């Protein structure tokens, strides 16, 4: 029996008296396509931060591929295969797009421990970095500084970096937020065509996207798991509609037609 890609057990996080995450249990199988939805302030990003190690849980544990990683730092977790995108771009704004990618590849493979051999002397790294840019169709921007790119393009770089980590578990925090609608399909196509072995968790508000992408949906309300199920089950769930989907009912309807 193989262990799940990622398991979260009894996770809690308090900020003072405020309980932001409450007894969350979550399992991502290998190759999972999971959406995490919930109203604003439900603690979705906090959960991602707890999984990646940006925040430490007050109690509970995070297990990656059968191995308890709760005590590990963010960087150690990343090296073991957790990659994420941030809700607001976190990029090396003063570096070129290509350098951004080379850094991700270099840190993944340990090249960055090398103080002597020039970056440019490793053609393999550069070529791999360019492959990720090609996949997102931003090779033309490779030599531009990130801060000179429009926000939507930067968003693609954000995703390319996460991919360059060759993750086992990929956490996408609203990947299409701030991207002009003409370019969202590009991001979603890329996400849809990812290696089927990678377990993916996506936080997304656009129900179109959620229902098209996810095989299973987790609903988070006020820091706790409200319910979990297939898109059909979630759609049929009256309580979910009341709590969350109700306010966006028309968009859910649209999603059904497309789906």
């Amino acid at each position, binding site marked *: 029996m193989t262990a799940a890609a990622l398991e979260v057990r009894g996770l809690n996080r308090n900020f003072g008296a405020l309980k932001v995450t409450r007894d969350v249990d979550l399992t991502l199988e290998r190759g999972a396509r999971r959406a995490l939805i919930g109203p604003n302030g439900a603690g979705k990003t906090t959960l991602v931060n707890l999984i990646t190690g940006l925040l430490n849980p007050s109690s509970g544990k995070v297990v990656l591929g059968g191995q308890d990683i709760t005590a590990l730092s963010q960087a150690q977790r990343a090296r073991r295969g957790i990659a994420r995108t*941030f809700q607001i771009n976190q990029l*090396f704004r003063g570096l070129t797009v*290509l350098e951004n990618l*080379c850094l991700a590849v270099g840190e993944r493979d340990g090249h960055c421990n090398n103080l002597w051999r*020039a*970056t440019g002397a490793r053609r393999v790294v550069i070529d791999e970095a360019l492959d990720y840019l090609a996949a997102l169709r931003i090779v*033309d921007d490779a030599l531009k500084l990130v801060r000179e790119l429009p926000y939507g393009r930067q968003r693609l770089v954000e995703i390319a970096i996460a991919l360059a980590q060759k993750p086992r578990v990929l956490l996408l925090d609203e990947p299409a937020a701030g991207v002009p609608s003409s370019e969202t399909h590009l991001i979603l196509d890329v996400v849809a065509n990812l290696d089927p072995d990678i377990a993916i968790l996506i936080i997304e508000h656009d129900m179109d996207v959620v229902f098209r992408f996810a095989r299973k949906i987790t609903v988070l309300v006020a820091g706790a798991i409200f319910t979990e199920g297939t898109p059909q089950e979630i759609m049929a769930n009256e309580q979910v509609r009341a709590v969350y989907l109700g306010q966006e009912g028309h968009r859910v309807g649209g999603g059904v037609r497309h789906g």
Partner: protein
Amino acid sequence: MAASEKSRELAATGARERAAGYLVGRHRFRPAEALPWLLAIAAFFLFPDRMTFGNQALIMVMFALSLDLILGYAGIVSLGHAAFFGVGAYTVGLLIARLDWSEPLSSLLAAAMLSGLIGFVTGWFILRYRGLTVIMLTLATAIMLQEAGNLRSDISGGYDGLPGLVISPLFGIFDYDLYGHVNYLYVLGVLAVIFYMVRRIVYSPFGQALTGIRENVRRMHAIGSPVHRRLVTVYTISAAIAGVAGALFTQTNAYVTLTVFDFDNSAKVMVMLILGGTGRLYGAFIGAVVYMMLEDHLSKLSPTFWQFGIGLLLILAVLFAPRGLLGLVEEISRKSWRRGRAGAARRLIWKGEHWTVLAGSAVDGAAIGFIVGFAANFGQAHLLSEYIASLPGRALAFTCFGALVATAINAIYLAFTSRAAAEDRGS
């Protein structure tokens, strides 16, 4: 259809090649890079009687280079880098004065190792934090070392220092002459070796990781970079280099006092680096040399004006040339390539709000000038009425001067910012 597909593919490979070519060729030496070294050698023949000054300038270049590694590349703001300069300087001084060890090269090595060790230990603690805490702790490191030296002035010689330190001939052959000729070549040689090492580090993947930490430490954690280890590594290297600079300082001056740990020394090297430009290797050269030449001329003229000048220089640098002299040169050449004269006229059309700002700054400047004039009347006027009576004279001049300076600075600032804003809109 197939043909257009093919051409698109070709264009894509073209873009790939261009992009890859940039990174592949970036670390290669460019002909222009020989220039500073040729100048340094030329100076040896052209100004044989100014070698002492040349020595000091080269040592400061090395010191600034070490700061560039942590400040310009890794983004660590240190207000106590003199700590390592001082450790290096005292290593050599104590080796000679207390252990009678005066061989120059092994002393350099000892200085590098000791200051590197102290850099490692302090860095390991300090670099877990960011921002103000780091600034404070680096500052405290330098002052604590100074106070420790003062505490054991029986060993360190205290603020009177260790005078009359004589080093052995280099390689046992070349004796150090009074005019510093051998010294100059010695320091230049050591600088060349160190520069080569720093240059390799900067263009290595490790150097890239440092810029990554400077640009966005959050992302570095997320891609699995051992940030703390990287920072401690570079801090140790930087400390060792600063130590070598300090060691050379003691060797060429033949004395050392506790003032090497002064805050002034830390501030000075930072000003040099900022002046030249951070994160660009040769910024350290230009900054240190320009600073030393200015200091050489101006501080003799009037130390007070010199200090005022540094202050003004820093403010102007932050306002107008945040990337230093080198950055300014690059920017100006880039811009004049990109846009012609059409843009220039547009830049001059100012919005109404600019005039209110200018009027405001004129009033501010006048007020400050008036107050300064008021204070400056120390010992001359004894009552407010007397002061008012003397207005047409000194105080009026101060008032006008204040208004003029403030308006001018603001005008230049607005010209810069409105241009930047116009470019933002344009792009």
